[in-house]
């Protein structure tokens, strides 16, 4: 059974490795100091289990998981207790608060080993991307993968979003990015005073709107600074008017 330890503190990683010595069936195949390395390593080694810190350079633990297509089972190790709910929403096996004891760590690993079907757990973790959560976005940014690279989009740089089946297309000045989350997820998690779902398939950054024109019977079109023309439904128009204060 393969495991990877991802933590930006070398001592914290060595601690996990030391505690793992009593579980010879688990082999540590890699150690990583940040989320970027973590992704590469997960793709290379296809581990069964991750020991994952949350606050890390580049991208945090949650953002890292979002970018992995079929994430392995995860045990979070962190000094922050405020992410516990989010962690369990991500179907983490366990959430260890630093500093933790050998016993507490052992319980988490035994919980993992005792899972009736580990494969099922894997599937559950990959649902992280779709699990609706009302928590605001971490650090006001969205992390996407484009080609082999990772791109960090600051929320204020988003021009608009368009639905594409179970994915969402994110339009920015730097290009268009695809993310495996739904429109309703973004409708709930983006700041409501600057993003409005004007249409079933569109969310618009209101700062980008230059004018709104009537279109066909009861609909409107929002014209953006970039020149893009975004459909606005009847209910979308009501929401838009409320946010713009008109």
């Amino acid at each position, binding site marked *: 059974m393969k495991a990877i330890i991802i933590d930006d503190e070398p001592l914290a990683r060595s601690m996990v490795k030391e505690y793992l010595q009593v579980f010879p069936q688990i082999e540590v195949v890699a150690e990583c100091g940040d989320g*970027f390395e973590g992704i590469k390593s997960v793709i290379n080694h296809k581990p069964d289990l991750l020991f994952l810190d949350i606050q890390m350079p580049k991208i945090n633990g949650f953002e890292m998981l979002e970018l992995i297509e079929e994430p392995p089972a995860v045990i979070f190790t962190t000094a922050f207790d405020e992410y516990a709910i989010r962690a369990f929403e991500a179907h983490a096996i366990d959430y260890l608060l630093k500093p933790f004891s050998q016993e507490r760590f052992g319980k988490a690993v035994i919980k993992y080993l005792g899972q009736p079907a580990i494969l099922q757990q894997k599937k559950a973790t990959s649902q992280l991307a779709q699990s609706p959560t009302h928590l605001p976005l971490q650090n006001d940014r969205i992390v996407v993968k484009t080609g082999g690279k990772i791109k960090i989009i600051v929320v204020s740089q988003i021009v608009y979003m368009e639905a594409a089946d179970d994915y969402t297309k994110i339009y920015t000045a730097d290009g268009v990015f695809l993310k495996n989350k739904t429109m309703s997820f973004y409708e709930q998690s983006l700041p409501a005073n600057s993003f409005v779902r004007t249409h079933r398939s569109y969310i618009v950054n209101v700062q980008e709107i230059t004018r709104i024109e009537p279109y066909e019977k009861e609909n409107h079109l929002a014209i953006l600074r970039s020149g893009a023309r975004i459909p606005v439904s009847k209910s979308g128009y009501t929401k838009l008017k409320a946010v713009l204060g008109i």
Partner: protein
Amino acid sequence: MPTSVLKTTRFRTAFGIWCSSWTALHFYILTKIGLSYHVALYDSVVSNLLLAGATIVVAVSLQFYLPESNKYSYLLGLCVVLSIIWVSISGALLLFLLHDATAYGAFFSHSILVRGAMGFLTISCMALLNVLWYTLQDQKETDKRKTEAERLSKEAELNNLRQQLQPHFLFNSLNSINALIVQQPQKARAMIEQLSDFLRGTLKEQKEWIPLEEELQHLELYLAIEKVRFGHRLSTSILNEAPNAQLPLMLLQPIVENAIKFGLYDTTDDITIVIEAKRKENNLILHITNPFDPETSVPNRGTGFGLSSVQRRLYLLFARQDLLQTSINNNLFTTIIKIPQP
């Protein structure tokens, strides 16, 4: 401006009742001493309407100008002047309206002193009532401000405490110690000592100003702990060319913490954090420089993260907005603060 007593419903009702009963009493007395209903009606209505007007003038002027406690003679003067004006106007008006009533002129001259006295009493009564009202309002306002200020300072103190304790820093350090205990017991022991010294420093009795040397020593402990946590990645350079300088408590630490957050927690390379202290004229100038990862975090040019509270403190202490400056040069973020020496 405080709300006028004239705007309260209770006062308006009382004022109305008072006006009408005063008029009725006036009318009754005049008929009792033998004046005709016609004359008594005119006299009572005109005099009391004008008197009501005079009291309103008092109330309004007190809304704009409330005499200080030792200047009540002004108030007395105002009441006397208003009473004289009232008697004159009501006399002129009544004599004009009732010029055909026999002997009314003589009656008015006879009663002028009584009228003047009554008018003065009524007007000063109103003045007194208003002074009380506005003083009470002032008092309430001051109390409110005081409570607000106290609440704010409590909050700040609490926040301060919470920040000083930095639970995440503490738990992560304990985790490192936990790892070191087995692998390098001597180092674990050293780190416990450093952590204890650092915590003791934050719990010390708080003076408003502290010597720069002391603050730098305290920060060195903090940085030494971070060095253990992040190994070789962190190096620091502290240069103090400002002997005997002083600085307000808890001013430099948030800036250094900010430098650690952007420079160390959010980067992956080896980094150096530089702290330089210089003296220029009567100012202590501090430069704090840290690298940052432009790919993932772009510090706010104005306030960076967590620097707005520093800016606020500097403003509260010195009433100046220009004491905190930041600059970005390639991947280096520099915070410069200027502290006028006491």
